[in-house]
């Protein structure tokens, strides 16, 4: 998803008044909710709060983990500390997982924007089990979401969670990170991820805290960075990691599980939910073409079903992006600008995607901004 949850539920991108009416804008860099008792969305719906009985890193662990890290992570420490105090005794409910390939598990996200009721479990997240260790691929959209995923791991294996791979900066993929800190995994991300966390981490956390309180979660700085490609070995099962240029976001990472010929494309691939653009429309099209050369039996999209035959889905995303870029260029070439693009760009895609009107306008703004500087005279 996009800078994410964003749009409706977050004041950040504001695509619609629904979530915003009750949310209001956070003041810049204020890391505590001014009205802690207040819930913005779905406040009258039952809240699922899966947390883990054994969750207690202790103050020293907190310091080790966050003390040397950046402001965003320090803020997360505060979130964690209060979580520990308030939720220590509660048990996590394991997330429902699909197993599209042996030992590869996917929790399918709902096609909604983040709300308190859905705990931002809106992205496809999961894990891969090798002979010796487990790698989590995207820790989830909130601490609550991450704890539910962690419970699902523990329900299936006693092998250690040695790696947490974060496919990109967006909150629905990254904010569950603190749920796994207790496992002392190696957090892996794109070489551009630390910068993105520094720029946006606090902003995303603040907004999710507004929505979910202490269950909101935080970004954790990666320990290991991927600039081009890398591999990790889970014991008889090697995962190939690949860093992409600016595409869906500025920090996209994909994962190839050779053992089952499964490509975890994360948010380079959307199905059903309209793609959200927060990197480069031209770059995304380039990366799709490069990715298409990958041999794989199936693919895990960042949003959509648990898996699809590869390369299903690529054509849809490509068509959307080409239509968006083509329509925006037409507007710019005929002397139009942002306002003129809004009512026309990618309108032929309406009806093919869910949440279209929540994301397409922001995608247009992003594409106009990018493409009007494409060929400066």
């Amino acid at each position: 998803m996009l800078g994410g949850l964003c749009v409706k539920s977050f004041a950040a991108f504001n695509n619609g008044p629904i979530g915003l009416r009750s949310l209001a804008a956070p003041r810049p860099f204020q890391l505590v909710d001014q009205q802690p008792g207040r819930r913005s969305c779905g406040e009258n719906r039952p809240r699922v709060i899966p947390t883990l009985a054994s969750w207690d890193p202790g103050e020293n662990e907190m310091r080790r983990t966050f003390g040397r890290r950046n402001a965003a992570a320090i803020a997360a420490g505060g979130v964690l500390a209060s979580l520990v105090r308030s939720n220590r005794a509660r048990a996590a409910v394991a997330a429902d997982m699909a197993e599209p390939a042996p030992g590869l598990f996917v929790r399918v996200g709902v096609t909604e924007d983040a709300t308190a009721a859905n705990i931002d479990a809106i992205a496809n997240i999961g894990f891969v089990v090798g002979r010796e260790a487990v790698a989590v691929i995207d820790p989830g959209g909130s601490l609550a979401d991450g704890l539910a995923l962690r419970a699902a791991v523990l329900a299936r294996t006693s092998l250690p969670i040695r790696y947490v791979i974060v496919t990109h900066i967006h909150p629905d993929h990254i904010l569950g990170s603190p749920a796994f800190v207790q496992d002392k995994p190696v957090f892996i991300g794109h070489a551009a991820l630390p910068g993105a966390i520094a720029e946006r981490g606090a902003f995303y956390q603040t907004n999710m805290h507004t929505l979910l309180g202490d269950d909101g979660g935080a970004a954790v700085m990666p320990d290991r960075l991927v600039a081009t490609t890398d591999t990790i070995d889970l014991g008889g099962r090697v995962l190939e990691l690949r860093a992409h240029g600016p595409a869906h976001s500025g920090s996209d990472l994909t994962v190839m599980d050779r053992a089952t010929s499964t490509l975890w494309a994360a948010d380079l691939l959307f199905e059903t939910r309209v793609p959200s653009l927060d990197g480069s429309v031209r770059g995304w099209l380039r990366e799709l073409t490069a990715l298409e050369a990958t041999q794989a039996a199936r693919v895990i999209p960042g949003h959509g079903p648990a898996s699809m035959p590869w390369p299903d889905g690529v054509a849809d995303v490509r068509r959307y992006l080409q239509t968006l870029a083509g329509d925006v260029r037409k507007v710019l070439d005929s002397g139009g600008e942002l306002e003129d693009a809004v009512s026309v760009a990618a309108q032929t895609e309406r009806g093919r995607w869910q949440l279209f009107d929540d994301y397409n306008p922001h995608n247009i703004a992003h594409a106009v901004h990018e493409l009007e500087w494409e060929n400066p005279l």
Partner: protein
Amino acid sequence: MKRALWTALAVLLLAPAARAADEDAAEQAQRWELIHNAAFADRVLQDAGDAVQIAAPDRALDAALVPITIKLDPSKHIVTLSLFVDNNPSPLVGVFHFGSAISTDQIKTRVRVDAFTLIHAVAETADGQFLTASHYVKAAGGCSAPSSGQSAEILARIGKMQLRRERPLEGAAIPAQLLISHPNYNGMQMGVSGTNLIPARYLENVSVKTGGVTVFELESSISLSEDPSIGFTYTPAGDGAVEIVAQDSTGAVFKRHFDPLTN
């Protein structure tokens, strides 16, 4: 009113805007009175009626990139136009000082919007009237929101300009869009180090002339979007070329010459 206005309005940085979603008409009026007093002191402002009209999308596409169009009645002899985003930490977007080469039919720009807010335009006429119009915009987070993620590209092309113009009919005024690449850092965005806010660095002055005749001078601020865009209409003078000089808050000066359009 030039610099004094900015100094007065800086005070508003310290006055937090109401949480916009909860804001009612009384709070809006109170906020505007604060701005009005700071910016125009004892001036009497009149409702502009049809003379000044603000257009903006009902639902903002992107709160950091909200397009605003101010339609003006050319017969009113407007000499300055001030634009405010009331609930922004720094409400004054900018003041346009019009020269004789401008057609005062409309001005367009893109602004950051931090919270649901009224946008105000105040047009000063040659005979000393101050005409105001307002428009409500539903957008939020545009000030503290991270930059578009294109920061590296923008810094690499900082100061580059485009002047997008329509081919004129013989002797007619030319609608134009000026794009100036600049991050317009507002001092509220976190840097990639994560430990410091990126210091404010924004366009302070933009001067547009044609054949030596002023089209407009803009004093601008942090509420202008990244890669600022300004739409205006001008009547070519002299050789018809357009000269742009922009200066940012670090003192950096960016200049660009655009040849006259030929039919």
